């Protein structure tokens, strides 16, 4: 079986791109968009729509809604832990990179942390665009080796008797951490609870959410 693609050629292209691309990020992306638009391959208004979708519609507010519902509704939580793609689709949130979503639950004894050491896999349709630190070398290199040190930099101290479970997203499975409901917040409405759920708590770099 021979490859449809030419990796040697791409390695060579990258060597050329190293010196031939415009000098700044903004100019490089502008060059790319201009070339694609000129060739009739992309409509700039479609790019606008994607940007709007991931700025105003798709983002961590969706994940927060899923978490708040799981806190309020034990049956929903059960479905979420058993079949997360189906459970998020009840809210219309199934989409890019979430067809093989798994939800991992924090407890008094367990803390979960999600990383992608090989690239930057992330459950886009429920958390939106990944934060810069998630995609950076410092987090990707250290999360699997020194998770407690990483968490300490986020201001999260994990007691010695709590087990840290790191999930390295090496396949098409994606992970969402289900944080614990803040003490005393159980009676709040689902809408109010969504405000307490931070993006970082759903990646695992935040743990002790507070009732505001």
């Amino acid at each position: 079986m021979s490859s449809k693609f030419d990796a040697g050629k791409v390695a060579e292209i990258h060597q050329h791109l190293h010196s031939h691309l415009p000098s700044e990020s903004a100019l490089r992306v502008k060059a790319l968009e201009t070339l694609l638009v000129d060739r009739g391959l992309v409509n700039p208004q479609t790019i606008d729509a994607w940007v709007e979708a991931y700025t105003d519609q798709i983002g961590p507010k969706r994940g927060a809604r899923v978490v708040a519902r799981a806190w309020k509704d034990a049956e929903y939580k059960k479905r979420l832990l058993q079949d997360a793609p189906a459970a998020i689709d009840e809210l219309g949130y199934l989409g890019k990179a979430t067809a093989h979503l798994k939800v991992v639950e924090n407890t008094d004894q367990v803390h979960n942390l999600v990383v992608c050491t090989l690239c930057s896999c992330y459950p886009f349709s429920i958390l939106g665009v990944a934060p810069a630190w998630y995609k950076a070398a410092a987090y990707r290199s250290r999360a699997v080796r020194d998770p407690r040190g990483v968490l300490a930099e986020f201001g999260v101290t994990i007691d010695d008797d709590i087990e840290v479970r790191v999930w390295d997203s090496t396949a098409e499975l994606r992970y969402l951490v289900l944080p614990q409901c803040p003490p005393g917040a159980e009676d709040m409405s689902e809408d109010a609870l969504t405000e307490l759920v931070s993006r970082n708590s759903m990646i695992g770099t935040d743990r002790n959410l507070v009732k505001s």
Partner: protein
Amino acid sequence: MDGIHDLGGKQGYGPIEVDTDETPFHHDWEAREWGLAQSARTPGITIDWWRHCRELIAPEDYLGRPYFDSWAQTDFATYIEAGWMTLEDIGRFDAVGVGAEDDPPPALSLQQVLQEDHSHAFRFDAEIEADPLFAVGQEVITASHGHAGHTRLPQYARGRRGTIQACNGAHVFPDLSASGIEIHQYCYSVMFTADELWAEASGSRDKVFLDLWESYLAGDNE
């Protein structure tokens, strides 16, 4: 490949730039690149081939250029490799920007894009005839070596003993998908103790889970 992208466990990258800001884009060009990447895909491209093209970026660019910039560079490479554009085109892009050579595809509205995102919940699993080689709870050992192409067994987890935590079904095998060849193979969640992976984690109660394909694993008969 044992490339610059395989960062798990590497040392010297410094502290995390902690950020609780939930703004998706911090520069307009980041947003444009995000939108471009959703809108323009070359025929027959697979996620694994795209990832491999990103891994092939020169190490100094991979580490030195901003994240979405590396997406742009990866896109350039896939578009050039597929014949959509040439290296020479990039040098004169501002000259061709005066008028479109071809009519653009129809503009998608926000509602259409949201619908497309929903339909992009791609599944990578399929039923296959073979039964899984490994059972939940079984001890396995990972392959000791990688290869020059794309693979999803990171260096830090090679030649290590783990325990099958779950069978995720048969998923598209990335090492061949990066060559445009689609076969399905069982993919397992495998649990490793931190002290199996890292000398300094001796006595730790912590665990690391990876999703690994059958080809990466052998039964641990020791």
